[in-house]
């Protein structure tokens, strides 16, 4: 904890003390995590009560998981590039991450289409909570991912304005943490669904 806040805070870099914006990010990630903790525990409680439609998870969820893992690697690559002041690679890494994020979202959307074709509906007469929960988990995660994409775009714009480099690591550090969080969250959800669907 930082005892002497009279020091200039904007100059602080990740690891040398927590910048307020970094802390705000962590706190918001904790509250997001609570949403998914609530959903997954509700999922387990509901499943225990029976009348639970068992169905095979669409195989393309695995592809999507690999895509989002790759995007975590590219954002980390952009972060390392920023530390070495390699601005070209920063932009490239961020652009790749955004592209992979979009691929992931489209992939998730296609999974929904596949689910509908397999008669697993979100709501309506033949819907079962087991399917509805899948839609909710994927949808709320996708909503968070949209926020992450907007954040990436903001940092990309900063990178084009020469505001991301080894002495201004805060924004790219934050977006890297947040993107890893989104990837980790999806991985958790995917493993959770594999084990509990």
């Amino acid at each position, binding site marked *: 904890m930082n005892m002497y806040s009279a020091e200039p805070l904007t100059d602080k870099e990740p690891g040398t003390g927590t910048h*307020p914006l970094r802390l705000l990010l962590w706190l918001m990630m904790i*509250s997001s995590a609570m949403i998914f903790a609530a*959903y997954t525990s509700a999922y387990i409680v509901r499943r225990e009560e029976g009348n639970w439609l068992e169905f095979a998870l669409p195989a393309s969820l695995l592809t999507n998981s690999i895509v989002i893992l790759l995007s975590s690697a590219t954002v980390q690559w952009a972060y390392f590039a920023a530390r070495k002041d390699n601005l070209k690679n920063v932009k490239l890494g961020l652009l790749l991450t955004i592209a992979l994020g979009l691929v992931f979202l489209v992939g998730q959307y296609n999974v929904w289409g596949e689910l509908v074709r397999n008669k697993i509906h979100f709501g309506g007469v033949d819907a079962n909570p087991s399917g509805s929960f899948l839609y909710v988990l994927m949808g709320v995660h996708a909503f968070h991912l949209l926020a992450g994409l907007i954040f990436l775009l903001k940092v990309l714009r900063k990178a084009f304005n020469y505001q991301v480099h080894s002495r201004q690591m805060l924004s790219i550090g934050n977006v890297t943490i947040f993107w890893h969080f989104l990837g980790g969250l999806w991985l958790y959800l995917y493993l959770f669904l594999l084990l509990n669907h």
Partner: protein
Amino acid sequence: MAANLPTQSQVQGGIGVTEPHTEHDEHLHHDEHHEQSFLEKYVFSTDHKVIAKQFLITGIFWAILGGTLSSLFRLQLGWPESTFEWLSPFLGKWIEAGKLNPEFYLALVTMHGTIMVFFVLTAGLSGTFSNFLIPLQIGARDMASGFMNMLSYWFFFVSSVIMFISLFIETGPASAGWTIYPPLSALPQAIPGSGLGQTLWLVSMALFIASQLLGGVNYITTVINLRTRGMSMSKLPLTIWSFFLTAILGLLSFPVLLSAALLLIFDRSFGTSFFLSDIYIAGQALHNVGGSPVLFQHLFWFLGHPEVYIVIMPAMGMVSEILATNARKPIFGYRAMIGSLLGISLLSFVVWAHHMFVTGMNPFLGSVFMFLTLIIAVPSAVKTFNWLATLWRGNIRFTAAMLFSIGFVSLFISGGLTGIVLGNAALDIQMHNTYFVVAHFHLVMGSSAFFGLFAGVYHWFPKMFGRMMDEKLGYVHFWLTFLGVYLVFLPMHYVGIAGFPRRYYAWTGFDMFSQFADLNRFISIAAILAFFAQFIFLFNFFYSIFRGRRATQNPWNSTTLEWTAPIHPGHGNWPGAIPAVYRWPYDYSKPGAAEDFIPQNIPYSQTQSSNLPYEREME
């Protein structure tokens, strides 16, 4: 305080060192150079002090409305046989042939609970005082993110507007209770209020949760990151500790309510079956199969229980501060006070199912929750003991704030004792859904938190507006409110033990309850009188803003940092450097000291006559 001048040059670690230019400071200096427009200064302000006042004024508006609603349903409960034709200019079609519409009665109860719990005692209390006091008491220029702080208020404002509009729609506002249990809240066929009114309720609460989260992350970050030099966590005033832990509770529990609300929205509008199952209503079987209404209760009370501590903990912190200041004594057991706040915070997350003893849960599980619930009596008793020990042989000054703080302790004890009764599953099953429960939580959470709110307003009014509130009107307000609260809620315990059920529109159909007609009428009269007593406060508040006696810089001779700021602090709080902190916040009546208080920013080198042996090393 002239005494803090010499310390200011030490703040930045040496004379001649320029003030550090954080992004924030630059912003502040920028502000000094141009006149802020009215909009920037009073409406879309990022100054935590202005935002605090916005929360306070909005909270007052909601409190008046919440009180009005309770007066309306107390009229019905006190005089169930009477006609209320005279209310029809006010309530319109909700008065049918002179009688209050029974479904509107449920709407009144629902909106009273929602408004009081969320809009007044969460946003109005925590939003006001966390915003106002955190930067001023820890020595920060503003919140970590002034912009997010402003957004927090405006989310609350929009949420308020939506909730307010829902009062006037044709099908009436939400009517399923403030706990909005499905299936009642999910099916418009069940009650008209579950139509558009419930939709607006859910939208409003989603915005409210966003507001709470934006505010909460700011409070936590500010306390962790922006404390002034020397202000270690063990030198924080108890107010800050309580706001800090309150914000953490909100951060962890409000997202869960959001999850539950989202699932309920899907059930209501998208045909899912998370909470609905096997329902036959209005001559028609619904398609929903396999949902679990008890699941909703689990999700709701996972927020709902921490929520009652979100309501009460800020009041506890402010009362601790005001009791110590006005008893002219250090708070008794400072570390025990922090420890008990931590204990209450932790326990608040593992007791939620004590609201659900009658949902058919496994009795073993019930016993676990009962055990954990009863443990909360321990930190609560520690706090109560410490408050009483702080008063013991103190040099007490009975200011209006002090009276309300002592009143808080009284109400907290009275309401807490019945908590031990209700925490026992065996007794709760008997008492469930009676007026005993209503009496319990209105004393321990509702009235206590209100008393904390009043104490806070009377105490920090001089810092907020640079003027004093009238003490005599404060006394009148206190005694009428204090007596009123007890006259309302003590009889309710009796009625409740006798089995009188809550949420009933009229009890005249049941012979066994007709003997309580006089007691119910008594409660209603007391409640309405106590409500009218609040207008004394309102007059005092608004009159004093403009015409009150001008305040001095430190009117209560208090030790905390906010009183070292100018009487009218600008955006940035201290015109020069921020004072550094050398000592804990409760150096009252220290033996050997020149005065009976030593502010936190006075170094030990200036108080040699009163330093204790271990403090000499820090001179």
